[in-house]
């Protein structure tokens, strides 16, 4: 059993870096090895998100341009020093899932991405997870995706009211399997959101996508009672209009305040347990126990039970997850499946590879005047891979995770849902494409630069390759997996040592092949 003062050994530091980022650098490994869990967690959770926003040249919905906004974010992940930040933005993209395929507006998706980044790990002055959710209420991409902009007092649309509870704050059931809300609650909350719209122009002092309330379409009914049967508010429940004193635009903020006061069948904060459980599953491992969740909430004051004034802060919550025993429980045998984006970004970064791109022409109505213009569009791909695939976005799609395209409002399915035969084969394809990225410069895969070429013993060479990809602990001496790689290198013993890594063919065939096999190995799919 450890705590925030427990010192990290190298394997634990590696585990931490693998979970909170994409690439494990020697510098970071040295920085955290021998330091305490708390020291590392403090360093990682410090500061708020950057202001990066994916680039949108033309806001005209088209497949070629969908690739541009996708590749813009992916390239940022490949280059940024803020790796934990981007891992968290990806988490919130899954949590507040909106798909560009439905929203069909790149500017709004990029704006949402910027919003997620701003709040991704907290530390925003005078704000919190609660204000984050209030911002999501008014986020234009979300308003479009879940039909808030179609919600009127005469024809209420319940989509956002339902998903706000089911997915964003409470969950359908609490930790004991008891329902958190009823259809009546959805109806009342939908009324509160009726009439909310966003501007689709930039005139008169507002920006494109700014939210506003069209009071003519808003249902001003008072009271709007919610949670009269569940939520721990008693038979009276709570009134969204605060007894009629707070109607109109204030109602949607009141909804969030009420949701954050909701308690479950144990009398504990429902939002705190739901969000904490999900973050633990993402950063540490799935299925944390109630005791683990509650201990982390208590230490971080996420539910405000110690100090209401500093409730709902994400940074201390993330810190407490990163110092918890549950986080370090899987050091010896990682068993959380890497998301496809993590698999691709970590591989490229660890191998010091940038993406290449090819210019294509696309016919796009960039002025929105009914006349198509021919423009040049960059399509990013691994070096040499443009002939075999249509680019990195398609590869990620085939692995099951293109950015900005979560399959539904439920986001992506995690863990072993990522690794079926079809998506594993796509990961294998990607590994072979990496192996075939022959050439010079920063876009090429140059395995000879990643290990010591003076090595001649097959076992030493295999160990150097697994160490370069930071999975050496999963290929220990004497293991069948390590022996499989040695047999590959020596062609089942028919090539006798010493192996000469200064021989170009050995490097081009066998060293590339070794890296490829490790990228395809079960151990490398796990974190």
């Amino acid at each position, binding site marked *: 059993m450890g705590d925030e003062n427990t010192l990290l050994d190298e394997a634990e530091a590696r585990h931490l870096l693998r979970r909170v980022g994409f690439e494990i650098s020697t510098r970071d490994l040295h920085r955290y090895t021998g330091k305490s869990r708390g020291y590392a967690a403090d360093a990682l959770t410090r500061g708020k998100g950057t202001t990066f926003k994916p680039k949108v040249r033309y806001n005209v919905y088209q497949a070629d341009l969908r690739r541009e906004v996708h590749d813009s974010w992916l390239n940022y992940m490949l280059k940024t020093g803020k790796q934990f930040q981007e891992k968290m933005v990806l988490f919130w993209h899954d949590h507040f899932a909106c798909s560009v395929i439905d929203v069909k507006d790149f500017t709004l998706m990029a704006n949402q991405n910027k919003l997620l980044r701003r709040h991704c790990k907290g530390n925003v002055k005078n704000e919190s997870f609660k204000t984050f959710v209030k911002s999501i209420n008014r986020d234009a991409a979300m308003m479009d995706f879940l039909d808030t902009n179609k919600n009127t007092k005469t024809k209420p649309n319940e989509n956002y009211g*339902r998903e706000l509870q*089911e997915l964003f704050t409470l969950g*359908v059931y609490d930790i004991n399997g008891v*329902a958190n809300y009823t*259809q009546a609650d*959805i109806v009342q909350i939908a009324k509160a959101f009726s009439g909310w719209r966003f501007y689709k122009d930039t005139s008169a002092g507002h920006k494109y996508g700014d939210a506003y309330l069209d009071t003519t379409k808003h249902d001003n009914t008072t009271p709007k009672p919610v949670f009269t049967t569940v939520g721990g508010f008693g038979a009276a429940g709570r009134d969204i209009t605060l007894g009629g004193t707070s109607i109109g635009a204030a109602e949607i903020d009141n909804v969030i305040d009420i949701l954050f006061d909701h308690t479950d069948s144990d009398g504990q904060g429902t939002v705190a347990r739901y969000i904490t459980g999900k973050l633990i599953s993402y950063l540490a491992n799935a299925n944390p126990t109630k005791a683990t969740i509650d201990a982390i909430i208590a230490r971080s004051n996420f539910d405000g039970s110690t100090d209401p004034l500093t409730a709902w802060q994400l940074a201390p919550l993330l810190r407490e997850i990163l110092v918890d025993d549950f986080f370090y429980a899987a050091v010896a*045998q990682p*068993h*959380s*499946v890497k998301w496809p984006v993590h698999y691709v970004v970590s591989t490229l970064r660890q191998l010091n590879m940038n993406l290449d791109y090819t210019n294509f022409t696309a016919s796009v109505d960039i002025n929105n005047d009914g006349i198509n213009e021919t423009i040049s569009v960059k399509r990013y791909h691994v070096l040499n891979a443009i002939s075999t695939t249509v680019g990195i976005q398609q590869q990620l799609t*085939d692995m*099951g995770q293109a950015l900005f395209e979560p399959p*539904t409002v*439920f986001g992506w*399915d995690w*863990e*072993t*849902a990522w*690794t*079926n*035969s*079809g*998506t*594993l*084969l796509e990961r*294998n*394809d990607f*590994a*072979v494409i990496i*192996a*075939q990225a*022959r050439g010079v410069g920063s876009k090429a895969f140059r395995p000879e630069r990643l290990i010591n070429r003076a090595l001649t013993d097959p076992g030493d060479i295999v160990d150097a390759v697994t160490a370069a990809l930071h999975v050496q602990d999963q290929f220990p001496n004497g*293991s*069948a*997996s390590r*022996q*499989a*790689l040695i*047999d*590959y290198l020596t*062609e*089942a013993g028919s090539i006798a040592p010493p192996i000469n890594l200064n021989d170009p063919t050995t490097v*081009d*065939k*066998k060293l*590339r*092949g070794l890296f*490829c*096999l490790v990228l*395809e*190995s*079960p*151990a490398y*799919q*796990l974190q």
Partner: protein
Amino acid sequence: MSLSRRQFLKRTSLLTAGSFLSPALARNPFLRRAMADALGGKYLIILNADGGNDGLNTVIPTSGSLRATYQAVRNTLEIPTTSLAASSISNDPGTGNALALHPALDGFKSLYDLGRVAVFQGCGYPNPNLSHDEARKKWAIGDPTNTLGGNAGWVGRFLVNAGYGAADISSVNLRTSIAREFSQSTTNVIAMSSLASFDFPYDSAYSSDDSYKRAAYAALHEDASLSAEATRQFIGNAGTATLTASEHYPPIEPIYLADRPTWNNGYESLNSATADNLREIAKIIYAVENGFDTNVCARFFQLTKGGFDTHSNQGAETGRQANLFKEISRAVEQFYADVENMGIANKVLVVWWSEFGRRVN
């Protein structure tokens, strides 16, 4: 399609008797053949209309009180009885009111007239909470009162009980992910978008290296499949099955193309994803039936056609829902004709289903 529900359930109970077999015994090819015999050499295809198909505009009342209720809740999306005359089916057993299929389900209507279609209407679960995902989950897991617990799908549990083991490939899903009703972690379900795209990748610069890479890939995954840790074991088994399937499934395609060019063209002319996916299933069934490769023995299939979350934009006689219906019913009609021509129509059951967790209007 000719199996009645009762016959199907009878076979289900027959097959569960196989569960006393140990996994090692179940891997024996002779026993596998025996299992297929117990199943009567049948094939099950599950076709999911994802997004919540509007059941009221699928099987439509055309007379009596049901019609009046229908008109009240579908006032803007109503399909007039004049448009439904050509697609009428049997009366509703409860009320005796007349029913008809949506006119765009013409492929199903012709199969219905042949006695090949059965309709199960108004299926649901107790105290629905109106969540789409919850409804999907209920249908996929098939455990509405949550008495079994866990997330294994109903087909998945069946496969496990039937004795399929870690080395078997019992099922193919024509999609990029495994459908939830197939989920379990005992035996293999292959997800592929097409047979041709399912070949195993090698570095094209050194084909002489392929066999060494293959051996290492197999050994790495075998090592993982022996792990005591469940996720690692799962990936090990999945990788092993992927390697096997990628070597045995793509070669069956040219056989079908050479033997059944007319049928192939029939799917081609429909020009739809559903027709393409059903054609891949037909290719596999053709190979299984003819025993081209003992490693190709899948009998359970799944495919999805999404886009049914049409809500108020679904249209009535024409429109989004009608287009989806046309695609599905014509593709199934073609598929049925194909397997009928193979002489095995009486061994093939297609189940078409959709979740719908929302309010009626």
